[in-house]
């Protein structure tokens, strides 16, 4: 069997991380092709629901990346993201999604090599976890549970 290749969705802020990813390209730093990138204006645009949506739709991991703290093009956006993700991690934990599936990282426009390394790390980190089934649309377990509890309440 082929080795499991995780699908990673990367949300990158336009000003730092997306530019850093471009620099990795210009410098021809090779990294695994598992990541597919969505450009957002600022990491502050990241509604945690987007991460949830990606995980629900079958992403094995999600990367959110923005400017380093203090460097935000919009002054404060990345601080909010940092706080939101902090809370979101707790929710993931509650939902039983391993923390490794969601990465928050800061990559600046001059960190091409670091971006390539980051992607390698994210992929390596997720591979041992196997495919993400936390939000599989198969609700049979849930139904069985619901039925059971229905019965017990009878």
């Amino acid at each position, binding site marked *: 069997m082929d080795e499991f290749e995780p699908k990673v969705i990367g949300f990158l802020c336009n000003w730092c991380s997306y530019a850093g990813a471009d*620099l*990795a*390209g210009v*410098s021809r730093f090779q990294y695994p092709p598992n990541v597919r*990138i969505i450009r957002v*204006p600022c990491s502050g*645009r*990241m509604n945690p629901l987007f991460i949830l949506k990606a995980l629900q739709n079958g992403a094995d991991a999600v990367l959110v990346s923005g400017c380093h703290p*203090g*460097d935000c093009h919009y002054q404060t956006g990345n601080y909010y993201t940092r706080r939101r993700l902090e809370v979101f991690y707790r929710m993931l934990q509650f939902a039983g999604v391993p923390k490794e599936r969601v990465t928050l990282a800061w990559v600046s426009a001059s960190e091409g090599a670091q971006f390539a390394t980051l992607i390698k790390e994210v992929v390596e980190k997720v591979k041992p976890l196997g495919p993400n089934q936390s939000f599989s649309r198969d609700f049979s377990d849930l139904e069985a549970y619901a039925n059971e509890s229905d019965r017990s309440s009878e």
Partner: protein
Amino acid sequence: MEEETRPVGKVLVIGGGVAGVQASLDLAYNGFKTYLVESRDAIGGTMAQLDKTFPTNDCSMCILSPKLVETGSNPNIELLTRSKIVKLEGSSPHFKVTVRTEPRYVDFALCKGCGDCSQACPVTLPNEYEEKLGTKKAISRRYEQAVPSTFGITKWETSPCKAACPLHVNAHGYIALVHKGEYEKALALVREKNPFPAITGRICTRPCEKACTRLSLDENIAIDALKRFLADKEIANGTLWDPECAKDNGKKVAIIGSGPAGLLCAFDLRVKGYEVSVFEKKNQFGGLLRYGIPAYRLPREILDREIDMLRRMGIQFFSSHEIKGEDTIRILRRQYDAVLLATGAWKSKKMNIPGESLPGVHGAIEFLEQINEGTLPPLHGKIAIVGGGNAAMDCARSVLRLGASESHILYRRTKQEMPANPEEIEEAILEGVRFHFLTNPIEIQQDSFGYKVMLQQMSLGEPDESGRRRPIPIPGAMQDLYFDTVIMAISQETTPEDFPLIDSEKGLYVADRKTMETSFLGVFAGGDNILGPATFIEAMACGRKAAISIDRYCNHEEIDLGREGEDPFEIKAHLDLSQVIPIPQQKTAIRIPSRLQNDMSEVNLGLTEEKAKTESGRCLNCGGCAECMECVKACESHAILHDMVAKEQVLDVGAVIVASGFEESDASHYAQYGLGIFPNVVTSTQFERILSASGPYGGVITRPGDKKHPKKIAWLQCIGSRDTEHPYCSSVCCMYATKEAVIAREHSKEVEATIFYIDIRAFGKEFDQYIERAKQEYGVRFVKSRIASVSEMQDGSLQLTYEDDAGVLHRDVFELVVLSVGLASTEENCQLAKTLHIQTNNYGMIESKEFHPNETNQPGIFAAGSISGPKDIPESVTEGSAAACMASAILHEERGKEVTIKAYPPEINVIGDKPRIGVFVCYCGLNIGGYLDVEEVAQYISRLPNVVYAETNLYTCSSDTQAKIRDKIKEHQLNRVVVASCTPRTHEPLFQETIREAGLNRNLFELANIRDQDSWVHQTKRKEATEKAKYLVKSAVYRVMNRKPLTIQLMPITRKGLVIGGGFAGLQSALSLAEQGFPTYLIEKEKYLGGNGLHVHYLEENPTVGESLQQLIQKVLNHPKIEVYRDSAIQSIEGYVGNFKTTLQDGKTLEHGVIVVATGGLESKTTAYGYGLSHQIITGRELEAMIHYNKWPNPKSVAFIQCVESRDDHHPYCSRICCQEAVKNSLLIKNLSPTTEVYILNRDIRTYGYHELLYKKAREKGVVTVRFEKNRKPNVFFKGGNVAISVYDSLLHREIELCPDILVLSTGISPNPDNVELAKKLKVPLTQDGFFLEAHAKLRPVDFATDGIFLAGLSHSPRNIEETITQARAAAGKACIILSKAGIEAGGKIAYVNNRNCSGCGSCEEICPYQAITLVNHSKSTPLQRVAEVNASLCKGCGSCASACRSNAIDVEGFSNDEISQAVDALLEPM
């Protein structure tokens, strides 16, 4: 006539650093056409080289790069790179400037910036951008994000090796290709000029190697051996080379002689399609190659192989055909279109000494001929060879192989002057040939012992024409030697009697040296027969010249037109060799047979591949580009033009801004610090590159000497500053060194950082806090000491010797030393100042008059940035804006007249239409197409719903594809367009422009990045990259599908300004606004204008402040466009950019479009140090007033205490100006009474920039400085009713007591307490210290984050009057940009609210960094329900609000919740 007096609405900006870039942008936005001239390949200046910036630790490139892109894409800024000003004529506002642009060799219009050329380029040069720590290719970009992104070639001069070769074989080129491992390409390059590399690589006399630049350093590159290596490699591979020949042209040429000249001519003509016949009198071909050179040097199979190549080309060879005499040549001439005589020189020259015709005395040529024919009778005994050339060596070595017992060389000079190749001499010595130098035969006699050679002993005199020292006979010194045979290897000559109809003299035919024409029409001559004995390579060059002439002759063309470049020419190398490390030459292996007899196999075995690589790596690339043309072959868009030439143009401009920056003081001047001597001593800019993630070491701290990671790093301050050559302070070094230390600590916690300083000058906004953090949080050690010397240890580390405060000598070892080099003027700037007729100071920097910062002595020419003295980034940016403001003021009537405003077709209404998406997938040459299947991607995409058209393009960004996209939009009624190519960051605007030109709204476009984020990063994974590309393009299709057209609306502007505050800053701002033509209100809360300026009387030592202030006030009061409101306070401010409404306390309302905040600051009040208890204790301002109003009592002694109410826990900031004020005042005191003792009690003396000169003057006049520590402040008490101070002098390490008659407290500057109220009214932030907070510390120093509001002067931070004037102009200039717009742009990709969902919770309002959201009443019917409202003019579209909204009521156009969700769907849906 009227036309003449109208100013020219264009401005020239010189220098593309951050000051020049800012000035250009301001001018272009202000409606003026701008030329930005930059001498380098790209704009960005020094800031582009920095890793981080202080005090915010922002990534320098991150914040600069968008500004550069903005500059590059602004239609009203014309970038002229590689350009310099050569002449300036006329006067303001009608300048005529001549600009010279050096060739870039790459066409801007065609270059796509893909970098294929750079990858193909074999030449590696030092990279100036990396401060020579890294390398770049000869064709490269200054840096990856460079603007313009067009590549450029570094060409210096023709490489000396190539210039010196008679055939101009591109030695530099093939050496570089060998180094790159491109052996076939290298060989092909040799053969472009020389089809016989295997022969040449063995026997050439190598003029190239004698010209090699490395010779002056160590040894030349073994060029010939490398050529041979290439040829041998091909032989070993068993491949044959068959050059392409043109179609037969029906013309016939006869060549007489098959030596090098004949063979090359035959080759050249055959390639051109001639039918060539070669006639040879001997029975084998090759001429002297075969009959003059022994086989152990040129194996016969090598010779045969290259002659066979000629045979395969179709050249006909006739052996044993001696052609001689007048008739034969006449007949030949009738049968052939042209004839070449390449008969060589086959007769040995005689010395004309007695005994030369004896039977045992031979000529070398005839002797060698016999050897190589095999007709020589066996030899025996001792043989003498007279001469020192290659022929002599050949004879000497051959005779040993043919039975002679001894072989002796007799030569009249020494080994050094011998013309033979050095290897030949060495090998001859190894084989046992004996050498007799400085001896010359004068007679040969035969007697019973053999041949007695009578030798005259010589000595060396002065050099002759050949450059070799002339041999002079020593009278009476004679020697006789006996030999069995004597060979005369002096020289050769020709036999002119063979063709008597051709002119001859000196035993040679006469032919034109340029064209090889003889006196017989159609007959050409070339080679030894016209040159005399020449070298193989020279003979070939003759053959080539003859071939060109014959071709021209046969085509009835002018034969001698433009033939000058064919001869070797001299080149003076201009490379700095001081930094080059000597590396010995790689030697070829040789085989010296133990028994020489009859062993004719090759002696020299050539270079191994490994050695060839090493040897080629020694090349210094002294010509820059090697012109190997690999880039031309690699460039798919044919953008490279090696024959581009420099261009001059004359520009008409109304004003000029000079912003060409600085260079580092050359620290290698100061030998004691070891820069350039010890590899692990670097400059601060080098260290910036070391820190940079995109730098030579990828951001890992590495020392250049041995690539180890240093743990202990020292910074040495004031290198090239505050010394005799540069007596000023460079202002920025303390901060950048601290920043570098902090970042180094961030990179690795193991790094120990130590800064050796004289004074820490952290005088800017938030700087002192940064130093404190460096000390406390990052553990950076600051040592007050000037380093005496740096010495290198064995392991490459460096020992510093220094004296500490107490005078104790220390030695400490550091692994890396960083020199904090100062800022100095450049040679180029001094030249520029001369060209522009502007004055510079003693240090080559532009000089401005007092109170006229940024002005030069030439009206209409302004200076910005470090060209007028050391500046940091925000100061440079401010000056750029200020200079632009001043230029705009001169030209404001012409605003908008020279700029182009594009007209577009009306927009097609697509609302309600089904999406019809067109997709254009780019190959980007091979950049995308080489690594993923572009066709498959397009195929896949064409099947997606709503995609009605999909195609592939070689270059989607080329102008012909733009036309195609527009056509396809019409043809297929496309209403959405997707391009799959490179990054939207650079290319989105281009495609948006294209669809706009076809009538589609800009927003109906999406770009899929399948190059930078796909093909380039997955180069070995074609399948995966193709699949990823499909997903990425699909995602773009999904995103664009539901896009709505977005329009930018222009809201009206009230074209008036409001300035708050009537001090220097406010007055200047108001005046600058009015000078640009905008009515302005000036509000001052006091009864009088002038603010703090009223209390300042002296600028340096001159009492001119009051006068200048009064002039400024009068100008403001008299200006018809300025309305002044004194004694007025602001009640409220409403509105936003373009339309503010300010209500004054008296109820009057003012409408205006912009606001400049210039509310000033205050001299801090204090109760410290006994202030108020004695009339002896005064503040600095009181002192100045006493002097000014003649109340100064001329006391015996005065003491200043610095940092009162500054740099303490309550005021953690430095008040910047107190040190310069104290120094100024102490000079004033000394001027009044030189005997008054003056003491300045300080923590550091922060006289930055030129203020340092005043400090120096004060010290010279006897002003004493006493240093105290922050935690050991001076103690002021009263002693006998008089003031006394006791202070612990931290330099002397003892308590001292002073009893001054007057104690001056240098109280700092406090923020205006009114700032708090005003900040609330304006909804703008304050710093912790209570000053106003600008939008960005570095790049937006006079703007607030809220559009339309600007700041200047002490309301921003403490600063002096001239700095305030500059800042005020900058703020006014920025404000004018808004006032001169057609309207305030509102809309686009910004946030919008769905009122039905909004609960009015206010989260968005709170989170918005731009104050763009406010809660308003929903409607009149439901007055209690509050909803959010977005101010379209203020919103920047960051989307923070949308992610904060709990009820999904607020969303962002272009990045909406739905759109991002669709992108997620697209990326995860199975194919």
